[in-house]
């Protein structure tokens, strides 16, 4: 009884959540270098830079001290909102906290810890299946399903996950996805998978007539595609530094 009364008065509840998050993996600590690259990216895909929250990953940097404040300022100038830092030395962690940013352990450590916790919880299977469900929900929320013909001049994008189109993508139309693109129909327009750099993404379609195919920025124009592949089912992947197109199945 008293529990119920309390819950009515609660100002908030803590809930576990898995949100899609962009990780900006730094390979240079030079703010000017970062600025130049961001400016280039901004002009390419302005839609992406709309106060997008990012986690700055400094795992690949081997520098004990970072001009973190300046790097954050560069990001904000380009409408990216740094919300946390991942990895780095103890001084990096301290300066992240001083800037009001969160700090995440490097991936290796996180994975090790996750394994640890899984083995701990093996006894209580219920909890594990709950976690799985949350994860599955987060994944399915990022997938976008579009039913109908994507027509000339239209753009359909899934900025966090896969895109599924049940219908054709006509010439002059554009479909984009952070993940893979599945088209249950003819692909006559442009398809760009892995727009945030995911080279594992693929493009699948029932009939290939695409104007442009791109996986993680590596593209092929219709002219570059072997004519024997046209008009058939196709899957497109980025393999050995180039786009590989082959019939499905």
């Amino acid at each position: 009884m008293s529990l119920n009364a309390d819950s009515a008065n609660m100002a908030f509840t803590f809930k576990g959540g898995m949100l899609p998050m962009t990780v900006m993996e730094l390979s240079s600590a030079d703010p000017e270098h970062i600025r130049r690259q961001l400016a280039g990216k901004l002009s390419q895909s302005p839609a992406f830079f709309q106060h997008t929250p990012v986690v700055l990953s400094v795992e690949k940097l081997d520098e004990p001290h970072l001009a973190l404040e300046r790097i954050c300022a560069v990001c904000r100038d380009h409408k990216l909102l740094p919300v946390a830092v991942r990895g780095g030395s103890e001084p990096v962690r301290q300066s992240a906290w001083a800037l009001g940013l969160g700090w995440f352990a490097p991936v290796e450590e996180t994975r090790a810890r996750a394994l640890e916790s899984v083995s701990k919880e093996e006894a209580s299977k219920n909890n594990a299946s709950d976690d799985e469900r949350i994860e599955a929900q987060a994944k399915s929320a990022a997938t976008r399903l579009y039913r109908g013909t994507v027509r000339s001049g239209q753009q359909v994008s899934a900025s966090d996950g896969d895109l599924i189109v049940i219908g054709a993508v006509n010439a002059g139309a554009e479909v984009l996805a952070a993940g893979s693109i599945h088209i249950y129909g003819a692909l006559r327009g442009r398809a760009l998978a892995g727009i945030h750099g995911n080279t594992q993404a693929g493009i699948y379609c029932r009939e290939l007539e695409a104007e442009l195919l791109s996986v993680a920025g590596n593209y092929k124009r219709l002219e570059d595609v072997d004519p024997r592949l046209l008009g058939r089912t196709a899957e497109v992947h980025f393999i050995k530094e180039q786009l590989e197109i082959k019939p499905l199945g």
Partner: protein
Amino acid sequence: MAKIIVVTSGKGGVGKTTSAAAISTGLALRGKKTVVIDFDVGLRNLDLIMGCERRVVYDLVNVIQGEAGLNQALIRDKRVENLYILPASQTRDKDALTQEGVAEVLEKLREEFDFIICDSPAGIERGAQLAMYFADEAIVVTNPEVSSVRDSDRILGLLASKTRRAEQGGDPIKEHLLVTRYNPERVTTGDMLTLEDIREILAVHLLGLIPESEAVLRASNQGVPVTHDASSDAGQAYTDTVSRLLGEEIPLRFHEVQRKGLLSRMFGGNRR
């Protein structure tokens, strides 16, 4: 309450005005009280095709700007009862049309008529968008040719996003495809896209197919909508189209090469 139907295409010269005139005439011949509105401000043509260019006093822009009443601007067709034409202005440009003004005119017409046919200008700019904005149904006119099909595809995209029904999230606009200038012989020789190709790309309901015909040109120049020419193939095709628009199921005609008889081969008779 009238049904508002826009006749549109994206590309110019595919037969929008001819089709708007022929379909509105066909509807009136079937006893439906119909008004056809020319939205092509600055390049008006509908009055010529309808043969009423000498009777234009006031136009759509005059009505929208309050310079004339709606009844003063409506021209009554001389050949068919129940048919009225609201012409466009030739001296103004498309910026003279406002969304509120168009809405007001259509609201008034809705009470009195069964069908309001909006003849859209070519392109996808303001004039075309206003012509389609309030529509309940759309007839997309397409020629069997790649650029026309591409533009029609673009228009279908706009119909699904830039119209009142799309913005207010009600039932979507009912889309129809009308293929015009279809020449089965040239389809066979590969000069033109086949009907199947067009239908596969555009993936919308086929309302009708109008064969390429001398009767259309003749009708335009004489200012008599081709529907009146009941002996011509195009006239019959438009009559079929109107019947389908009214919900009847009519088999498709004129989409296959007709075998020519010995006489017409000898004398090179053209189909009329």
